[in-house]
């Protein structure tokens, strides 16, 4: 077990910047997730920690030792590739034995460790097969097995579940978490799927275009996103964003979105004090929208555009002018296209339109 820290790390490939001035602290024994869309620099980051890619600038420390110039084989790090990178000419057994062979461990012990690991991963019957004779899920387990046979300081996982089909992915997610906890090592897990990150990780770093936008626990990211990108990336269905201007009328503060006006009741003064301009983006999570068929105080009226029944809930698409606002409602809530409903926002986020930063968070 060891912590990993990256200090002002940059990496360029030709003219494209993969990672830019990135600083990150991964704690000892933590399940840490790198979350971001493809091209965010997740894989480059993992490869730099593993040592197969050298940063242009900055330092990488494992266990408080600067490893920037240490070759991968001496870093005591392991990595599961997105492609699994199983050696095609070696059997499953030989694939898993490879790291042990490289460490000159006696044959009898290798046999014992490989067989035990295969037992845990339920791949014992496959040991004599070649990788091409395995299914995607089986290959994935072998890839994980090869990483598990020794006790690395850090285990890097590069989108290990991305190449699996949807059902297997959900199945493996739970199993993966269990296995990783038993490994008792620091885990860095790159994924483009926020659900994977949120369900498995202790902490998540949200990456976009080579920068860390925020890193925190899944709950904090959900409750206090610092900017528009994080807010939109965490949570499913994604947060609704509505362009608004802040207006004052009769000593009340409203958000004016052209199609509707929404009154801000609390913290209005503080919000105003932190605003650079009156152009803001209103963010509301679908699960924070209360829909009702009856008119209520402080509610706004919208039209139902379409509704999807994804039991146990339904996703209602509401039409506000040209804009669609998604809301979650219990499945009993029976609406059809064209119905008028009354909507109340239980929790809102406000973002500066120019900087894309969250405003209200600075207030509280």
């Amino acid at each position, binding site marked *: 077990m060891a912590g990993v820290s990256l200090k002002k790390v940059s990496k360029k490939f030709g003219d494209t910047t993969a990672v830019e001035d990135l600083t990150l602290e991964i704690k000892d024994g933590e399940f840490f997730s790198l979350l971001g869309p493809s091209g965010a620099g997740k894989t480059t980051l993992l*490869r730099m920690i*593993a*040592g*197969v890619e050298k940063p242009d600038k900055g330092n990488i420390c494992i266990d408080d030792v600067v490893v920037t110039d240490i*070759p*991968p*084989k001496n*870093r005591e*790090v*392991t*990595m599961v*590739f997105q*492609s699994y*990178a199983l*050696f*095609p*000419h070696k059997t499953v057994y030989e694939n898993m034995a*490879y*790291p042990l062979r*490289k*460490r000159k461990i006696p044959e009898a012990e290798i046999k014992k460790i490989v067989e035990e690991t295969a037992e845990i991963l339920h791949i014992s019957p496959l040991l004599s097969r070649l990788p*091409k004779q395995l299914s995607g899920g089986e290959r994935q387990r072998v890839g994980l097995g*090869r990483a598990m046979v020794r006790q690395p300081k850090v285990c890097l996982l590069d989108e290990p579940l991305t190449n699996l089909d949807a059902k297997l992915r959900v199945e493996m997610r739970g199993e993966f978490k269990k296995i990783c906890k038993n490994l008792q090592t620091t885990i860095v897990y790159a994924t483009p799927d926020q659900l994977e990150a949120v369900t498995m990780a202790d902490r998540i770093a949200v990456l976009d275009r080579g920068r860390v936008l925020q890193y925190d626990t899944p709950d904090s990211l959900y409750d206090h996103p610092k900017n528009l990108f994080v807010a939109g990336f965490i949570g499913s269905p994604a947060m609704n964003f509505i362009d608004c201007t802040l207006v004052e009328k009769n000593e009340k503060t409203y958000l004016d979105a052209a199609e509707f006006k929404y009154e801000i009741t609390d913290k209005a003064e503080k919000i105003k004090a932190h605003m650079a301009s009156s152009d803001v983006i209103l963010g509301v999570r679908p699960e924070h929208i209360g829909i009702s068929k009856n008119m209520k105080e402080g509610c706004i009226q919208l039209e139902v555009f379409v509704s999807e029944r994804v039991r146990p809930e339904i996703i209602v698409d509401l039409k506000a002018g040209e804009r669609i606002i998604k809301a979650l409602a219990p499945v009993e809530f029976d609406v059809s296209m064209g119905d008028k409903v009354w909507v109340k926002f239980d929790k809102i986020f406000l973002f500066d339109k120019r900087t894309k930063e969250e405003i209200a968070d600075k207030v509280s």
Partner: protein
Amino acid sequence: MKIEMKTKRRIVDSLYYIGVIIVLIAVLFPFFWMVLTSIKKELDVLSIPPKIFFEPTIENYTFVFERSSIIKGLINSLVIVGGVIALVIPISMLAAYSFSRFNVGGGHFQFYILTVRMFPPIAAIVPYFVIFRNFGLLDNIISITLLNALFNMPFTIWLLVGFLREIPQDLEEAAMIEGASRFEAFREITLPLIAPALAVAAIFAAIFTWNEFLFAFILTRSEAITVTRVMAGFYTERGILWGPLSACATLCTVPMFILALMIQKYIVRGLTFGAVR
């Protein structure tokens, strides 16, 4: 309906086989004629119309063995081929590896090497003759081996770069993370995977070298004489000795034929490398 499908299938199949047979005849007929000529008597060789039934003879073969340096030529050619493979394969393999993994020379160096292949050897033969004469390398088996190695290398490098690009770098990187140095990763992971490609490269180099005529014709005389040079000896001032020439050609085809049969499995695997994975 079912029967119709079956008939259609049969027609397509027979057309396919007819095509294959035509191609095979076109390819194999000269070979067949060569073998046939080699066992004909001098008078039968040139008779018009060609004789289909004739009394076979081995006099051409005895002539070849007794009156030409075929044994020496065969030994020399085998030594040259062996030397070329021993030089070309390791060097091209390492060159191709660095081109495919580190992009050495940013593509320019690789192109420069490939231009050697585009270069017509006949344009270089005069300078080479002068250089070899001045260094006392004429009719020398080492110099002819080096020259063949040089002219074979661009093709094998180009071939191996293609194969190496097919092998994901992830594999080597995985090996390196799991405890191998780069060289170990190359030796233990990449090398076994490109073995079929190396076999293909080796057989190409062998065939090109075995068939090489121009350098042998100009730069060898008696000591370093090759099979192709021996064959040229049957073009005499008294005319072309068709019978012995065919016998000699048949004898020269045999080693390559055996080689091709031996590593046929690798060639097929090597040529379909990208497709099977």
